[in-house]
């Protein structure tokens, strides 16, 4: 099945940005509609990136651009890992590394707003990591391997046995997607106390790289949601896509119904959710006999 893996990997690299762009555009239109506004055209993110690339390079730091490009490359490799059915732990690790590359790139700027934003970004990574690691452990407990392709040989979707891990993932997705109530570090709305956070001083090529990285990230995160719904049945892929769409709509609704909370609340709640969801769900496993169970 190597050819299938290669094909999927190439498809991911080529199609994911297009899909990410369209989903981001749809996100903006839906958010606008929830606020009784019209919203821009669905291709607006593409127009934005095109405009950013056409800007004069006046203040771009070479180190910053290289680090941002590395961030993008690592994320693409993470997605390739995922779609080629490779090691899931590697995918999560690369995704985290990509975030760290962004943090390093942003810390190049001396502006106080950027520095505070960088601190908050680090905090965000620390809040997401526990849940993501528990997610990977859950995959291992369910299928017996860290490999994504092993999910396609199960009979039941993973969400049946790991519902709390799923809820925890959706909770953490709010942080990763930078949606209220957890859009504390940097978001597309520059109204915060730290203006645009880590990306305040970036423009032109730097900002374009960040945009494209976010497109890839969107597809990868939605794929993680979809992982809970795939089985050996090929139709389950449709179910996975539907589930990802529903979760995305839910995230947009949550974004428009909550204020932004402070970092202390985000930290406490994300660790609490990770702890509770992980412990309770794994406890369920240790007392029930089932197919992919390793410990008994």
């Amino acid at each position: 099945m190597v050819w299938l893996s290669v094909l999927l990997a190439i498809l991911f690299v080529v199609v994911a940005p297009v899909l990410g762009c369209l989903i981001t555009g749809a996100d903006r239109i839906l958010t606008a509609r929830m606020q009784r506004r019209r919203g821009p055209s669905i291709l607006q993110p593409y127009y934005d990136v095109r405009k950013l690339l056409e800007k004069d390079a006046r203040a771009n730091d070479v180190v910053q651009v290289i680090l941002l490009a590395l961030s993008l490359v690592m994320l693409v490799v993470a997605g390739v890992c995922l779609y080629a059915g490779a090691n899931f732990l590697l995918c999560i690790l690369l995704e985290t590394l990509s975030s760290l590359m962004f943090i390093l790139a942003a810390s190049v700027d001396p502006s106080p707003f950027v520095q505070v934003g960088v601190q908050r970004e680090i905090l965000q990574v620390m809040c997401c990591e526990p849940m993501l690691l528990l997610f990977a452990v859950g995959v291992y407990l369910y299928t017996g391997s860290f490999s994504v392709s092993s999910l396609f040989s199960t009979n039941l979707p993973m969400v049946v046995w790991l519902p709390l891990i799923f809820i925890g993932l959706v909770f953490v997705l709010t942080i990763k997607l930078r949606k209220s109530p957890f859009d504390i570090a940097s978001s597309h709305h520059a109204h915060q106390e730290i203006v645009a956070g880590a990306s305040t001083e970036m423009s032109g090529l730097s900002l374009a790289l960040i945009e494209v990285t976010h497109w890839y990230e969107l597809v990868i995160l939605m794929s993680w949601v979809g992982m809970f719904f795939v089985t050996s049945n090929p139709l389950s892929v449709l179910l996975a896509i539907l589930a990802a769409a529903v979760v995305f709509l839910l995230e947009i609704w949550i974004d428009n119904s909550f204020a932004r909370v402070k970092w202390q609340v985000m930290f406490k709640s994300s660790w609490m959710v990770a702890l509770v969801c992980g412990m309770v769900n794994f406890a369920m496993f240790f007392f029930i006999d089932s197919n992919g169970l390793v410990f008994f």
Partner: protein
Amino acid sequence: MSGLFKLGKMTLQSLFSKPATVAYPAEPREYYPMTRGQVSIDIAACIQCGTCERGCPTGCLAVDKANYTWSINRYQCVQCQHCVRSCPVHCLTMRHNYTESATEKHVDVYGLTPAQRAVKDAEARARAEKQAKAREAALAKKRAKAQAEKGGAEKAAGTGAASAAKGGAGTTAGSGDASGGDEGARNA
């Protein structure tokens, strides 16, 4: 849990409602009849008194009495309607659509057609003639009065009042038309 999603209902309802915004200028804006958009003038009715020009808080109006024109710098106008309210002949009105955008600032000048100017010039000449005639009549009247008083004073026995009247009459006869007109008005 009851403190969550308080705005959730309004958010979901809005998703399925028509947007509250107007896609201006593609969609035309509906103005109210009273909207203060821009000042317009019926130049034929304007009497060039200059009340609007003096009262304007931004100084955007200019009235040229000699050429019968009225001009406005719409980019300085703040639509306060002071000119509309203070015009004595009510030739100014407030239209309800805003001034259109332009790429350069300019001053709008409103003037009369040559035919209208001819009419106005004729009216001005007629007014001037009437005033001149009135002044002459008043002056003649005063001279006649002065003569009568002179005659009366000679008859009376040289009192202070008679010499004062003579002196007053003397100055009146000596000074020009303008003061004679004023004196005539006061005495009449």
